[in-house]
């Protein structure tokens, strides 16, 4: 359910964050979120160049079950979005930590990374929800 790699961080709202070599971050939603939402049918991506604050709504994913807001895990500028999700939203179900990535941000407050959840913290959030 949770990507084991140490590169990843998480949010309470079920986004994952991976810091890249150029210090940008890639953002997606966790397998746990995908499991809750079911088959994805539509992703409304933000525009490249948009500036977002941490915890700001930046994207909407719609599944067969519900619409769900995606929140920016960190403040920054959107430098890329995964356009393939337009035609293939099912990538979110099939490969949430890989081909189902949603967007990349260039953080303006790099310190925010440290306040994200690590794997153990996020596992606790998931366990709490499933309780």
């Amino acid at each position, binding site marked *: 359910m949770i990507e084991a790699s140490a590169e990843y961080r998480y949010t309470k709202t079920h986004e994952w964050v991976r810091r890249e070599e150029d210090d940008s971050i890639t953002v997606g939603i966790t397998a746990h979120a995908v499991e809750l939402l079911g088959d994805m049918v539509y992703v409304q991506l933000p525009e490249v160049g948009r500036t977002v604050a941490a915890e700001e709504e930046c994207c909407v994913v719609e599944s*067969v079950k519900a619409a769900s807001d995606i929140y920016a895990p960190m403040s920054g500028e959107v430098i890329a979005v995964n356009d393939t999700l337009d035609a293939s939203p099912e990538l979110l179900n099939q490969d949430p930590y890989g081909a189902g990535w949603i967007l990349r941000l260039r953080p303006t407050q790099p310190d925010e990374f440290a306040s994200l959840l690590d794997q153990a913290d996020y596992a606790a959030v998931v366990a709490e929800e499933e309780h």
Partner: protein
Amino acid sequence: MGNKTSLYDQHLIAGAKMVDFAGWDMPLHYGSQIEEHHRVRRAAGMFDVSHMAVVDLHGLRVRAFLRTLLANDVARLTTPGKALYSCLLDTQGHVLDDLIAYFLTEDWFRLVVNASTRTKDLAWIQSHASAFGVAVRERTDLAMIAVQGPEARMRTLNVLPGTLSSAADQLLPFQGKIGEGVGEEDWFVARTGYTGEEGFEVVLPSAEAAGFWKALLAAGVVPCGLGARDTLRLEAGMNLYGNDMDETVTPLESGLAWTVAFVPRERDFVGRAALDAQRTVGVSYKLVGLIVEGRGMMRHGHAVKVPGVGEGIVTSGGFSPTLGRSIAFARVPAATTTECHVEVRPGQWLTARVVKTPFVRFGKSHWT
């Protein structure tokens, strides 16, 4: 812990995501409800619908009883086994439930009613049955499996027991047959369904359900959950009780006028006076099919605006896997013509076209 059908273990084995539905632990999907949907449109899928209630009515005056109880007229059922879709109304003409009535013999009719309305329906039916000397027997000893899709009949015929298989092969659309072979007395096969595809609904003893389910699996029929069942019935233009009609509306406001038999005039069914009066005055609202323009999901409860006409509400909505966009039913002012607007997100309104249903029938759609 909810009620469990006799196929509960089979669902777990197949990897189902289980959810509560009207007090029953039922499969929502077995991995991907969209894949399951496509399997039914293109090949064959099966649904555990054992949570629905099978109610047998016995008595010499059972036909007269049902001609009073139901808004549709069982006098239309002249061939044994034939089925009729009808609403069950209260005296105000409001919809208590929708059901299928099967004419088995002149003193035996069978009803299949919704799980969510089981208790209410049984009490209502019972309260009217005594006057006709009709005995009401809920068949909690039976399970029900719907097998649907273009390949459903062929694959089911191969695994039905003995004489029932050849009998099922002869069935006309909307007709059923009770098993006649030894040990088949509690089996019942009907050429009915809730998907807009060919197929059977098989009623059988609960103790034999798992074996039959496994035989269907081996015959290449894939398990499908309530998720696919909902998108298939929506595409097929079929109402869902509790969403598209309930005790606050009449069939005439729910796209179900075709199921009310106003002729012969002298047939005095429960709710008739109210419906006659409503017909005279004219309905204020109607149920229509919608296809969204652009991207966004119409869902149950979304607000609808019809410019210059009034407001309405989405009663059922979601993603149509066949059309690749959102479709819906909405209750809108009767004067609504070709177009409306649906609030798919707070403050975000999309245009939707009013279209004739079904959206999809036998795998095909004339809408894009």
